[in-house]
């Protein structure tokens, strides 16, 4: 077995256990709410169409969006918003199948039940439910497979799941991790589906042995799956620090760097990886994570809504003060490098057009296409950049950041919004255009600490402060390249940083 696979499988008990806990909780609540609602809908015909329509509408919201929407709605991240989104998602198949299953029972049987003197409840329990059971169970099985699959998308809202394999694996090009995550999720869905089917057969045949076996298997699965989650690490008395990361290579590497630094200082650490950009900030403000790395320019533009650029030191000073004043968040250390938005071109193309600075680009822009990541063209920096240099590109193309570099190298676009620490800048022989007017704010990487974390975790501030100036642009670029281009692991890349 390869070392990568062994390394991934070590994470499996935790990821699988949390995935199982999340899916089973959501399903149990979903079924417990949907079944009685469906029974009510059978009797209240007027409510049926509107309720089913709402359930269908929820279903049409893409899973990732539904999960992400729960965060602002509930004002928190992690298990709760993920579970509620999954509960909503599970409702439709259970509701629809239960209502149609009961409605489709032969009217002669209803007539017989009423004629024999059954009350409406007896009719439901003794006639309608047993006969609708296969259809209802089919709905529950559909919901189970959906929920287990969708739970992989709960990683960016801060609920650990098998999706952690998939999100971090895709970003760091670790396809072993992606495969482990997919296979484990599929296997879990099949096992749960099979168990429900077994319970159904046992119910229909009134087979006590099969029912007992299915119940035992369910208990065994839940015990084995949940034990590492519910018992994990309780024996360890060392204080525990939760480290957050966003969803790109540099963040995973820096997360490990912080973890090893803190472990050396006597802390236990737990990673909460692949958080959406604003989710990470909100999680820190709410104390759900204790620290993570953000960038001054991101806070400046996205959270402080500033479009001006008073210079690197002034931005650092203002961001530090703003974080402390408005969120009681402490900016503990600047790591020493900047990961800025920068416009990049291939060296040949830049030379051919005679472009060295962004200002040089203005004359050629109408004939050029620019590629940007998902957020770049809606960010204030882009508006500022266009206004400052009078840029009017012929075409704007939004694409995944991992694909941008290849698109540039393949001449599909002429300019991209690169990240200045990306290892691919050197690898694809790109040149970064100088921002002579200072339109793009500085993006110093800074370690942020949650409100009250310093008091709760004595020694944390000192340990994190030790990272100040620990990583320069060159080193960060080399570490990113190690993962993105050379196929190295995130752990090795982190060691590359700490050895400097």
């Amino acid at each position: 077995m390869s070392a990568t696979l062994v390394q991934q499988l070590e994470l499996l008990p935790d990821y699988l256990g949390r995935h199982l806990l999340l899916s089973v909780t959501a399903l149990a609540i979903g079924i417990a709410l949907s079944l009685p609602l469906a029974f009510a809908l059978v009797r209240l015909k007027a409510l049926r169409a509107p309720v089913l329509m709402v359930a269908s509408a929820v279903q049409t919201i893409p899973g990732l969006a539904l999960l992400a929407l729960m965060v602002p709605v509930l004002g928190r991240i992690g298990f709760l918003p993920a579970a509620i989104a999954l509960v909503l998602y599970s409702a439709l198949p259970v509701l629809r199948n239960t209502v149609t299953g009961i409605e489709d029972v032969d009217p002669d049987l209803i007539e017989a039940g009423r004629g024999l003197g059954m009350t409406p409840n007896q009719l439901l329990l003794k006639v309608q439910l047993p006969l609708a059971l296969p259809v209802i169970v089919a709905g529950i099985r559909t919901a189970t497979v959906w929920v287990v699959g969708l739970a992989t998308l709960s990683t960016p809202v801060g609920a650990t799941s098998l999706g952690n394999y998939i999100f971090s694996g895709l970003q760091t090009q670790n396809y072993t991790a992606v495969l482990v995550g997919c296979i484990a999720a599929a296997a879990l869905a099949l096992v749960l589906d099979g168990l429900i089917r077994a319970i159904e057969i046992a119910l229909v045949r009134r087979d006590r042995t099969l029912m007992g076996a299915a119940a035992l298997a369910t208990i065994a699965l839940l015990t084995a799956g949940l034990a590492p989650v519910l018992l994990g690490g309780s024996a360890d008395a060392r204080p525990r620090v939760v480290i957050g990361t966003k969803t790109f290579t540099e963040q995973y590497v820096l997360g490990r760097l912080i973890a090893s630094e803190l472990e050396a200082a006597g802390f236990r650490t737990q990673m909460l990886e692949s958080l959406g950009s604003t989710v990470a900030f909100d999680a820190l403000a709410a104390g759900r994570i204790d620290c993570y790395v953000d960038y001054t320019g991101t806070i400046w533009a996205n959270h402080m809504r500033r479009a001006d650029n008073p210079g690197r030191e002034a931005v650092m000073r203002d961001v530090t003060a703003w974080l402390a004043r408005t969120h009681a968040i402490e900016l503990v250390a600047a790591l020493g490098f900047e990961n800025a938005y920068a416009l990049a071109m291939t060296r040949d193309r830049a030379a051919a057009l005679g472009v060295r600075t962004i200002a040089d680009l203005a004359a050629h822009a109408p004939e050029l296409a620019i590629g940007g990541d998902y957020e770049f063209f809606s960010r204030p920096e882009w508006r500022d950049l266009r206004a400052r240099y009078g840029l009017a590109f012929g075409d704007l193309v939004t694409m995944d950041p991992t694909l941008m570099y290849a698109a540039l190298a393949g001449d599909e676009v002429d300019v991209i919004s690169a990240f200045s620490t990306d290892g691919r800048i050197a690898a694809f022989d790109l040149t970064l255009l100088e921002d002579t007017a200072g339109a793009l704010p500085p993006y110093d990487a800074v370690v942020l600490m949650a409100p009250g974390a310093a008091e709760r975790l004595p020694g944390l501030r000192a340990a994190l402060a030790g990272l100040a100036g620990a990583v320069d642009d060159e080193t960060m670029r080399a570490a990113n390249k190690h993962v993105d281009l050379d196929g190295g692991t995130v752990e090795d890349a982190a060691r590359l940083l700490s050895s400097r």
Partner: protein
Amino acid sequence: MVRDVIALENVSKTYDGAGAPAVRGIDLDVAAESLLALVGESGCGKTTTLKMMNRLVEPSAGRVTVAGEDVRSLDPIVLRRRIGYAFQGVGLFPHLDVAANVATVPRLLHWTEREIAARVDELLEMVGLPPAQFRGRYPRELSGGEQQRVGVARALAARAKVLLMDEPFGALDPITRDALQSELKTLQRALGLTVVLVTHDVTEALLLADRIAVMKDGAIVGHDTPGRLMADPHPYVRALMDMPRRHAERIARVAGSA
């Protein structure tokens, strides 16, 4: 003593959203231990009339009494458990075996399992289905006639003295129908049942009923013993009674020419 077990006084029924009433101001008495047949063509109101007797349908006006009690003063659930009900669809529960189907009402009434088992065997015996052979079978394993027999056994399970039947033999082949008809008559006499039988088959009514009520457009246009009804002057009744008479005469001619 002959007294009326079921009585309808000036009973009408208009369904929600329907223009014309389904039943218009009818009076009807059913004597104890007798068999009344309600005949008439589809839509004449005979099924509605039957269903008002166990409150599967509520009258719009008038009074229905069962054993002297106004049915409106009775809990419909209790009323239906006291009155047997069998219909063309039979409605045997497909997820339950024959014994469990027959035991439906005794179970609702919380009889002991021992009482229930004894009663099931007694009933299956009574409707001509050997219990050892039929107890554990499922409805899908039975012929149409066997299903209807189980249906009757289920209707009578809680020792009902009144049995309402809606076209119970309508879907059966002629030989099975004939057998079940005579068994019903035997059963009715043996158990002293009061039976109301809805049928569009006038011959069946003539052969089984003590009295026949003829319905047309929601009204009763004739109500008498089979013999006297054959001589009723009402044009519709006469037309209706003519059919079996003509058939009988033709059959007699065919038989005579052989």
